[in-house]
């Protein structure tokens, strides 16, 4: 190296150049949201790195899955078989109820709820950035993922799709500080808004008056009002209600039902926006798989 005579522009000029660049990037990315498509390409460009970063964890889970004893497998198999029977019975019952509901809705001339298509996804990586709660999943535009799609797991709502790459996409979690879901109390239908707090296990409900009927332990479900999330999926359970006389509103916190810090498999819902009331789609095959299983 030859550090005695520096050639080219000085560090200060370089710094000013890159600061202007980052200022412009921040402005266009945050205020104008004009980088959505570019972000998709960049996301697919760096997804090899994400796949590589995920391999140690994959090896660990593969190892632990292979070290399970035969006895454990058999008991697990029995449990699953029992559960399957149970769920099968429930699906049959649900099918009858759904048809009855559709018929009633037709009689009332209200729109029939469309079928939701579901795509199965597995978590690829969790962000280490402490300011935002996001995870990356292994489905992208090639699998038909679109921005804004709701994501659930087996317990409840997880979040929604934020950026879509070719083979991977980013999920904004429920408790991120920039996220909010319209919900209602399952017990009495009272409408609230569940805003993220930035902490994994806490949602905040602002502007709820002290006289509103919310109790600890109440289950909050999506109200379907925002148009993003379909109606009726469980979101969170109320953990604490503080009614301070000096404050105008009650302070209500709730904890997401989905175990957001222990996610592994998720379902992406896509709502068919066919609003015209069609005649009853008679399903011949009750066990038709609506879940598109991936390679796994």
């Amino acid at each position, binding site marked *: *190296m*030859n*550090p005695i005579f520096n050639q080219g522009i000085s*560090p*200060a000029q*370089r*710094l000013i*150049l*890159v*600061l202007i*660049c*980052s*200022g*412009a*990037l*921040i402005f266009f*990315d*945050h205020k104008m949201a004009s*980088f959505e498509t570019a*972000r998709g390409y*960049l*996301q697919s*460009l*760096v997804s090899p*790195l*994400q796949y*590589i*970063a*995920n391999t*140690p*964890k994959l090896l660990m889970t593969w190892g632990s899955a292979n070290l399970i004893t035969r006895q454990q497998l058999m008991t697990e198999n029995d449990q699953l078989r029992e559960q399957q029977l149970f769920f099968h019975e429930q699906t049959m019952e649900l099918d009858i109820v759904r048809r009855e509901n559709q018929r009633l809705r037709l009689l009332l001339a209200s729109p029939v709820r469309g079928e939701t298509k579901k795509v199965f996804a597995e978590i690829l*990586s*969790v*962000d*280490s*950035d*402490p*300011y*935002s709660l*996001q995870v*990356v999943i292994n489905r992208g535009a090639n699998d038909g993922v679109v921005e804004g799609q709701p994501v659930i797991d087996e317990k409840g709502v997880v979040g929604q799709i*934020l*950026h879509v790459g070719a083979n991977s996409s*980013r999920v904004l979690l429920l408790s991120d*500080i*920039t996220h909010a879901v319209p919900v209602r109390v399952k017990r009495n239908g009272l409408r609230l808004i569940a805003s993220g707090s*930035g902490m*994994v296990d806490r949602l905040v409900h602002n502007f709820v008056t002290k006289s509103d009927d919310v109790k600890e332990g109440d289950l909050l479900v999506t109200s379907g009002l925002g148009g993003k999330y379909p109606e009726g999926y469980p979101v969170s359970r109320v953990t604490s209600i503080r009614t301070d006389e000096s404050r105008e509103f009650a302070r209500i916190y709730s904890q997401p039902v989905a175990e957001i*810090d222990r996610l592994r498999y998720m379902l992406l819902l896509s709502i068919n926006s066919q609003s015209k009331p069609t005649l009853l789609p008679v399903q011949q095959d009750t066990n038709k798989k609506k879940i598109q299983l991936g390679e796994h």
Partner: protein
Amino acid sequence: MFRHNGFVILFTLLIALIASIAPMPLSVDVFRPDWVLIVLVYWCLALPNKINVITAWFIGLTLDILLGSVLGVHACAMALSIYIVVVNFQQIRNFSVWQQALIVGVLAAQYHLVVFWLQRFLSDVVFLPNYLYPVVTTVVLWPWMFFLLRRVRRHFRIK
């Protein structure tokens, strides 16, 4: 940049990027050291003619894409920290490793505070002290990474 085995620099930076996004349990994740900053500071001290503010900015931008933050946030913070190293590299080189570790700690703290300040400016995040936990692990890690990267540099004769 790629003469005299310069690709090894890029390779170490890629490993640092992977290390900074590899999934970890949440309790350990809070203490994740700033791998990318450590590696960049080392190469910047050793070969300031190869690694400069613009390289640091591009690596920071990659980190932005990987972390899903607003584009330019980590890039800006990284460029600011590396600028301080570039301007003072003659002095920092002559310090002992432990003194260097403290300086790297200050740089890491500055990096995190710039990131926090920009995030605060963009969305309503609140400051939690555990945003600065990585500074401690970064200070502890610096001597080890310094010797490791010096061996890498001597082995591959990167000039």
